[in-house]
């Protein structure tokens, strides 16, 4: 059993490599098939002599043959080097950007993830326990509406309500202007606690609420349906009836039922985490959240090959690792899983 699990983990981990390779190859060639390049994006319409253009192309390494560019970058990645940015500014290590931006995305993702799971569980359980009533229908409507909400629109509604109308919450950014926070992990809430900076803690939590709610509510719809249907299944099973017959408290019975209904939810969590990162791009743009999403959009505008390749490879690796962890947790949770 243990060896089976070990082997399973190694195989699953190795599967990440071809995924990243395929993605990298696609991104590499798509970027280069299109006319134009990062140097042209930087130079734009400015009146620059041709020899200087050549010099810039040389500095960016874009005068090398395609296959050389392809393998050079790949070689770099294997050594943990994601290359340097090719536009606005040129020559800054892409890794520095990822290190600066990724914690912002991760923090938003974790908060949104928590919101979505909690809301999903709450609404799903309510729906299941009130099966067939108006409350159940209301929860179903909630799940459909939440699932189909357009993030930028919904985000803006929240910004208007809690920002402009009520003046309760900030509408953008991660911290109030002028608050200095010594970054340890890059997760501002955690950093404020570690450094005992309470102003920064309040400020970062307040800045997180709206984007996390926006993304969390949108993603909670999928959980609502799954939890409800699983709970309904579990609640109709014999062992639940046996609990009731023995006079076990309602609340305890619900707890046991939820534990059983939770297994498929873990799988969804893994899948949702990838979607979460996608949703983060839209959420970050709506809330001017300085994370990987806005970084990627900016870099696509500049056609910054290295930065886009680096960000995509990093994302793919991260999603791969998360889904691996989810699979392992799933395997440990559900004794029926065979490797």
């Amino acid at each position, binding site marked *: 059993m243990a060896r089976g699990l070990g082997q399973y983990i190694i195989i699953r981990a190795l599967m990440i490599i071809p995924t990243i390779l395929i993605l990298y190859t696609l991104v590499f060639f798509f970027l280069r098939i*299109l*006319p*134009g*390049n*990062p140097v*042209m*994006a*930087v*130079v*734009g*319409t*400015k*009146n*620059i*002599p*041709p020899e*200087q253009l050549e*010099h*810039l192309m040389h500095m960016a390494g874009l005068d090398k043959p395609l296959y050389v560019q392809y393998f050079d970058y790949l070689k770099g990645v294997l050594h943990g080097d994601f290359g340097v940015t090719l536009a*606005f*500014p*040129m*020559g*800054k290590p892409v890794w520095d950007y990822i290190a600066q931006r990724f914690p912002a995305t991760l923090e938003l993702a974790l908060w949104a993830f928590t919101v979505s799971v909690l809301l999903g569980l709450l609404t799903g359980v*309510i729906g299941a*326990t009130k099966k067939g009533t108006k409350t159940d229908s209301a929860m179903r409507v909630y799940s459909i509406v939440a699932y189909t909400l357009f993030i930028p629109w919904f985000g*803006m509604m929240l*910004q*208007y309500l809690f*920002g*402009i109308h009520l*003046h*309760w919450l*900030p*509408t*953008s*950014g*991660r911290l*109030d*202007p*002028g*608050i*200095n926070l010594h970054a340890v992990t890059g997760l501002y809430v955690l950093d404020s606690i570690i450094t005992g900076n309470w*102003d920064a803690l*309040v*400020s970062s*939590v*307040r800045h997180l*609420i709206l984007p996390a709610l926006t993304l969390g509510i949108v993603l909670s719809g999928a959980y609502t349906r799954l939890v409800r249907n699983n709970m309904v299944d579990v609640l109709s099973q014999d062992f639940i009836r046996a609990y009731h017959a023995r006079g076990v408290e*309602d609340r305890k019975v619900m707890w046991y039922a939820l534990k059983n209904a939770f297994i498929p939810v873990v799988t969804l969590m893994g899948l949702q985490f990838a979607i979460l990162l996608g949703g983060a791009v839209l959420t*970050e*743009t709506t809330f*001017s959240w*300085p994370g990987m999403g*806005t*970084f990627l959009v*900016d870099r696509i*505008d*500049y*056609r910054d090959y290295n930065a886009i390749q680096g960000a995509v490879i990093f994302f793919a690796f991260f999603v791969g690792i998360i889904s691996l962890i989810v699979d392992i947790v799933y395997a440990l949770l559900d004794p029926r899983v065979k490797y």
Partner: protein
Amino acid sequence: MRRQYATLALVFLVVFSVVASGCISGGGGGGEEQPTTIVIGVTDKVTDLDPANAYDFYTWEVLNNVMEGLVKYKPGTLEIEPALAESWEVNEDSTVWTFHLRKDLKFADGTPLTAKDVVRSIERVMTIQGDPSWLVTDFVDKVEAKDDYTVVFYLKQPTAYFLALLTTPPYFPVHPDYAPDQIQSDQTAGGAGPYKITKWVRDEELVLEANPNYYGEKPKTEKIIIKFYRDASTMRLALQNGEIDIAWRTLRPSDIDSLKKDGNFNVIEVPGGFIRYICLNTKNDPTSNVKVRQALAAAVNRPEIAQKVFMGTVEPLYSLVPNGMWSHKDVFKDKYGDGNLELAKKLLSEAGYSESNPLEIQLWYTPTHYGDTEADLAQILKEQWEKTGMIKVTIKSAEWGTYTDYARNGQMQVYLLGWYPDYLDPDDYTTPFLKTGANKWAGTGYSNPTMDDLLSQAQRLSDQNERTKLYEQVQDILAQDVPYIPLIQGKLFVVTQKNVKGVTIGPDMIFRYSTLYKE
């Protein structure tokens, strides 16, 4: 069960309200700020905090606030006044310029600033060869420090507008911390401007504090915080929510319009020097025919564009030299008028087109680089041209990186571009567009020996009246040959909270923060 949910919901609401209502510090969005801090929101980015490579308008603005050159524009005017240099002289043919520095100049950290620093900084720009280096290398042969307080520039050719060039960042002395041969995009050591950088988180926040070693007048506001926004709508919300004191570059025309109507903000309008125009490929059919180009110019209706697309936030422009600059002439208005369909039809007939045999053209635009009004601009131009009944327009678009590549290679027929000046002189609005070779970037393929000769003469002369006559001729030929159709000239809008005063933006379009204050 129901009671439990009700309790849960109540607890959540209470916690949410407590955190949200800002009864803890930092409420109301912007935090408890001292009156000595002003927060400015922008959607632009700072690219390189290094004048050897920075070549975009907003970065130049920041550099202008943390550095200074030998001369500068008098706030709000086109008049050049002494800055780090207190006086200067120039030889007969404008090829040798000698500047005398102020005594006891210091960088922001107290390091003395001498003529050697000026020379080191300019030679650094020449060595690094970054994007804006041509502003130095095209003009300066060599630069020398005669002693600690004297800098001499030897120019490659007579350059009447050399003082205007000196106001640009590539000529600013930088702190010795800047590496002599490498671009340092995140270097915060700055120079000798009214402010110094105390915090820099790329794309998030830039904090400037008054430079205690500045030779000139102390800034009215001790601390300026610049917040970077992803888009105009988020920045507008931040202004309305009190998170920022000033919304600066760049709100959308519709935002400006509704903030004006709102009444809770000061909306300050400043003439801007940036221009928008249509490029016409003079090498390929059908736009190689001058009659076709003239017909397209005649059918354009600028006031309609300014109102419908830009809601009055721009003004019509009838030359490449902007309104208000010496030598400007409304040549396109005089020659073609606006929406002159009769003239357009006549010219098209002469070029061999008719309603049954219409002129077919492709109009290109780029969707994001000039803001989200670009598609509307292309659409209205299509309508104006098609009103003649003798033109059929297909609209096409490409992303910026691709678009500029197409332009440079002359792959588009008719396309929209814009221009921000490098230095404030008619030369910068004419030579890069109209001089053979210098206009390669634009892809119009335009070349006219008479034009080249006039432009070269105008560069060499130092008498402004003489130069004016030459630039007027240049504009007349431009309206005749039509390699470009000028469309509009931008205005700049600064929207501030009611208590913010002292906004100063000159014709150079640089916002100098040192005059800002809160009441």
